């Protein structure tokens, strides 16, 4: 486990999905930068803010996008344009668009036919049962709620019983009850020995189901492993935070008294720069101190750009 700007993961056993030094750029925009990781059977969560490169990574793993550099293999094979491999992979995209003229059942049947299933009817029945939409399977997809549409799309992804499931933000648009049902289903699938990679920008969604988390920040793998271990490691590291207020000296004096702060300095422009080993505690202290001393806070931001997103996920808990 590591939380440096680029995390290079090595695993002793043969991975199901192997990403080796992968970079992807679109023109001058670098979406992924030298990412290496291994994914083994079970549930792995891919966490990161919007724009971190999660979807790009999932597209590379599923072969929808070509790597600018590096290599992706699934079951030891190149995945891009390797059609036969799609018998073993199921991909649920973040885009919820469906063919509105199909019923739910027709949509799953369509996916089954494209996968060349022999016993199509029973496979479709089984997939629809798994997502709990038997009662509405003959309704047009255009009449489904967002959550129902997501589940029927998952049924179409599961119809050929793939060994690898890649789910891009599958819980978006689901209500709390649907989310729990969806999470239960994903956990059951992982229990069957499938390799599941699930992405989200919401920590709680991933943490609830995934034993292992990959943290993607600004196109780099920032950390990998158990969530609590990641957080503990983050707490060991000192971070610089800039605080802008209308009374910097008062605020600085108050901050120095807190345990979360290692040192405080005030720049020529009046901005406070705080060095802290415990950003979570600092972020709780700052608004409290501002309220106590009637100080107006203008800005609180990490000076290390790569930490900006970690703030959103780790610190806000």
């Amino acid at each position, binding site marked *: 486990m590591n939380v440096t700007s680029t995390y290079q993961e090595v695993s002793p056993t043969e991975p199901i999905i192997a990403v080796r030094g992968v970079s992807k750029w679109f023109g001058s925009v670098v979406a992924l930068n030298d990412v290496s990781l291994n994914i083994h059977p079970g549930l792995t969560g891919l966490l990161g803010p919007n724009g971190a490169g999660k979807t790009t990574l999932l597209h590379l793993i599923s072969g*929808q996008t070509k790597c600018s550099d590096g290599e992706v293999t699934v079951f030891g094979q190149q995945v891009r344009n390797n*059609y036969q491999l799609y018998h073993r992979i199921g991909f649920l*995209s973040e*885009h919820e*668009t*469906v063919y509105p003229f199909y019923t739910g059942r027709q949509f799953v049947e369509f996916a089954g036919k*494209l996968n060349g299933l022999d016993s199509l009817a029973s496979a479709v029945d089984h997939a629809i049962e798994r997502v709990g939409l038997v009662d509405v399977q003959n309704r047009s997809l255009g009449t489904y709620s967002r959550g129902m549409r997501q589940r029927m799309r998952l049924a179409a992804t599961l119809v050929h019983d793939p060994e690898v499931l890649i789910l891009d933000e599958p819980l978006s648009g689901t209500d709390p009850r649907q989310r729990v049902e969806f999470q239960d289903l994903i956990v059951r699938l992982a229990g069957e020995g499938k390799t599941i990679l699930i992405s989200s920008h919401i920590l709680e969604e991933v943490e609830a189901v995934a034993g292992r988390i990959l943290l993607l920040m600004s196109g780099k793998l920032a950390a990998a492993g158990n969530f609590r271990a990641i957080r503990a490691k983050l707490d060991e590291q000192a971070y610089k935070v800039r605080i802008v207020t209308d009374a910097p000296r008062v605020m600085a004096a108050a901050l120095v008294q807190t345990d979360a702060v290692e040192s405080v300095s005030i720049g020529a422009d009046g901005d406070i720069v705080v060095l802290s080993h415990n950003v979570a505690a600092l972020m709780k202290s700052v608004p409290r101190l501002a309220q106590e001393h009637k100080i107006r806070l203008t800005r609180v931001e990490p000076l290390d750009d790569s930490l900006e997103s970690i703030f959103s996920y780790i610190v806000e808990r």
Partner: protein
Amino acid sequence: MGPVLWLSLRQLGGRWRLALVLLLAALPVALAAMIRIFSNDDSSDENGFVNVLLDGLIVGGIMPIVVMALATAAFGNEVEDRTLGYLVLKPIPRWKIALPKFLATIFIGGPVLIGGGVVATVLGLEAGPQAAVAVGVGLFAGVITYAAIFTWMGLISNLAIAFALIYVFLWEGLIASLIPGIEYFSVRGYTLAIMHGMDESALDALSTRVIDLPTAIVGATVVTLLFFGLTVRRLLRMDVP
């Protein structure tokens, strides 16, 4: 291939798109009927039909517009609404995705355009069945060739209709009629040449501006295969949105 073809037929067979296609195909029939009603029974009417209605309106205007409306949407809609992943993430080779998309345009646009063109020819030209067959076969070749070009355009750009319109009116319409030799590289030229080659007497008005039949057949075949190949290549190389 069957599921993708059925999907494509349903996608392209929307009510409004079909209504537009039928309306456009009916236009030359209505005009040919008027020519027949108000005809003076001289050869200038027949030449007028061939030059204005058959070449100018059907082959030069309605056929490319109808095929463009269908073929650019064959992949264009899936790229736009991001449903292309439902097809390309399945264990089927890319040509089995491209072929049904291409065929769907032909299956929907072909019968309507050929039917309209043949009926218009029968009414406007008062020629025998050979001329009607010649027009039908020529239009069929034109639909196939345009379908290959516009299906590719729909896959490479979300501005495919704009590019297709520029291509049709600038290249096929203006440049091909002004610069000698361009008809060897023109779908309109192939279509008219196939029609003329199959019934030279009835379509004699085209004789001064068409290439020979074998060249037209080879040209249409090469263009169709080339653009179908480019479509498959694009599917292989593109980043799926």
